């Protein structure tokens, strides 16, 4: 009898839990689920504007997908996106790991930790578009970087950073690195601080070197956070848009080598091409899903 009553109380209290969840679901349905479903729905229609004339919507099945995947550009843009993401992510994770390790190691007794933690996070507070504008001004032919480089004799005449594939891509990678390494550092540090210091002490007593401690203790325990960082960065990286868009004024110059997948979405805006835009979004959704699964699988397999 007594037991039954307490069970009933648990159910009653659980009800409040559901009520507290309602706001999230309402917001989620309105701003995420409905747009997601309509995007998929729209991708099956021919629906755009030619000048002021509306064409469609006409149901065309999966013709938009054939058209999208049949053009070589989409694969090129996907390649651009991945190259620029990886190029930014590798330095980002290396620097972030190093910084997080230093910050979370009590034996180093670093001074001014708070100050540096704030400073490395700063670039992330600046809007990506403002950041890209800044870099555009800094690295333009008559900008300060070129003035310095020519005056100290590195180049005879200004180097056009935005006219060469390698330098243009590297600037974008560098910007993404600079914007996100602070964020990654803080995430990794949170993971590292959660590791029981007794483990480190035990390892030291057993005579383990710093390298051994890092690879045998820190990294394995950090793995869940590491996978989280990797997958969120991958998702963010595939949706890379603002930095290259602003830096190249939407042109993806030179030779479309900095055009990302989402920048193509933006190009469909002139004709309000909802059908192709939908198909592109769904395509990117699947690519992200597949790549995330691959990353997740690889990491959890090596754990076994």
């Amino acid at each position, binding site marked *: 009898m007594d037991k039954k009553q307490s069970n009933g109380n648990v159910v009653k*209290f659980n009800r*409040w839990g559901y*009520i*507290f969840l*309602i*706001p999230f679901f*309402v917001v989620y349905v*309105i701003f995420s689920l409905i747009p997601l479903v309509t995007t998929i729905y729209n991708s099956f229609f021919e629906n*755009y*504007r*030619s*000048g*002021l*004339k509306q*064409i469609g919507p006409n149901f065309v099945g999966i013709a938009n997908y054939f058209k999208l995947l049949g*053009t070589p*550009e989409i694969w090129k843009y996907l390649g651009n996106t991945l190259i620029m993401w990886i190029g930014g992510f590798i330095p980002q994770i290396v620097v972030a790991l190093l910084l997080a390790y230093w910050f979370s190691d009590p034996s180093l007794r670093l001074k001014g930790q708070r100050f540096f933690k704030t400073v490395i996070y700063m670039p992330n507070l600046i809007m990506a578009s403002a950041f890209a504008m800044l870099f555009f001004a800094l690295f*333009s*032919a*008559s900008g300060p970087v070129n003035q310095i480089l020519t005056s100290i004799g590195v180049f005879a005449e200004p180097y056009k950073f935005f*006219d060469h*594939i390698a330098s243009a891509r590297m600037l974008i990678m560098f910007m993404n690195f600079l914007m996100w390494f602070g964020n990654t550092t803080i995430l990794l540090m949170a993971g590292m601080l959660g590791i029981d210091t007794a483990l480190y002490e035990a390892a030291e007593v057993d005579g383990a070197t710093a390298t051994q401690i890092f690879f045998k203790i820190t990294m394995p325990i950090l793995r869940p956070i590491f996978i989280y960082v990797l997958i969120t960065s991958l998702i963010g990286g595939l949706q890379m848009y603002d930095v290259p868009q602003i830096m190249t*004024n*939407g*042109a993806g*110059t*030179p*030779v*479309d080598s900095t055009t990302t997948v989402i920048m*193509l979405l933006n*190009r*469909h*805006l*002139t*004709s309000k*091409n909802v059908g*192709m835009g939908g198909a592109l979004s769904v395509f990117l959704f699947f690519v992200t899903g597949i790549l995330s699964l691959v990353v997740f699988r690889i990491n959890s397999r090596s754990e076994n």
Partner: protein
Amino acid sequence: MKKKVLGVLLSTTMVAGMLSACGEAAGTPASTTEQPASTTTEQPASTTEATPAADTTAATPADSSTAEAPAAAADEGKVLNIAAWNEEFKSRLTDHYPGYEVVDGTTGKIGDVTVKWLITPNENNAYQDRLDEILLGQENASADDKLDLFLVEADYAVKYTDTDYTVPLSDLGVTADDLKDQYSYTQAVVTDSNGVLKGSSWQGCPGVMIYNRKIAEEVFGSQEPADIQAKFSDWDKFVESAEELKAAGYHVISSTADTFRVYQNNAKLPWVDGNKIQVDDNLKKWAEDSKKLYEAGYCDTWDQWGEDWNKGFYPEGKVFAYFGPAWLIDFCMAADVEGSVAHDGGWAATEGPQGFYWGGTWICAATGTDNAGLVADIMKKMTCDPEVMKDIVLKDNDFVNNKPVMEELAKDPSYKNDVLGGQNPLPMFCAGAENIDMANLTAYDQGLLGDFQKAMNDYIKGNYKTIDEAMEQFYTLALQRYPDLVR
């Protein structure tokens, strides 16, 4: 127990708060039909009720100005909405339209009609995007929100004039007699496919080659337009002279982009035939010639309007010439900046290798306007009235769209352009304006010529090995932009 009460309290406040927020969000679609409906029916009613009441007293002194200026009919709307992409037309209207008063940055007043300026920059197609939305929503907009007048450029004029969203000038009461003095090309731009005139312009934009007098004196030993013209009368001589300039340390033009309009206007084919994209040979010639110019070190490849492109506006920029029409000289060459070449009157103009035009702004009336009388009056005053137009030339050095006025001023020895060191460039402009042929316009011009330049720039800079690769890239960009076209 206390916990329970607290739980109930907290969750009810939260849900209540949420629902009230929801009520606003979810409620609006339902209430939009009610609310604006009531406000729209109320508002015009209240303005017509309130303003005449206030006006009968206030309007009596103001009436004198209303009577002399626009014949703002009593049954017309009280708000005139004008869409534009920069301040140019606004300043023209402010300076030259009788009875226009400035209220603040985005509003003005003509008699008792409020003028609202909807200014959106051209950048990334923003102006047209906004204009499209306004025009498509025109039918359902309330009378005061309806767009009355908007501006277009030649590159995309057809997109608007060849639709029912623009009013034929004859319906507005602007007659052929009013328009008889305009240059015929300005009318060809805004004539739709059925031959109906849909807009009017106060400007003509024949282009010339604007060169730096000091550099001319130093390199060619003369700064006289006739001598320089002899040095640049065709593209072969242009290249030869560029070589001389290079030897002296100057670029002949700032960027390869400068000559694009010259080649483009001398192309024979329209950009689109039916729905097939076609590229005139003269445009490919531009790419090839530009590549040679750039590789020989005669000029650079800056994007127009950028800081690097602008350098030649100042003596240390070491640029010999720019190609452009009257508005480039007066509006863009930093004439009001101390130390610029224009400020010291250091430019001169000559015809250059080929005639061309560049830009220009046309006024169109939006279908559904509730100020048709005022719109027609603005068109008549600003684009047909010889007095107003002469005033524009004298005050702003613009080249206006009125043959007798321009020809008179071309012969007038007292007319001088300070930026051009006192030269009177009007005879040159007049001759150029007569020869402009605008038969080749399509609704796709702006996007296609932009994409073409983008693709070709990579060829000129050497990022593409052959012109065919660049052409591939052009088609790729063009088809992304215009899904209804084919190659």
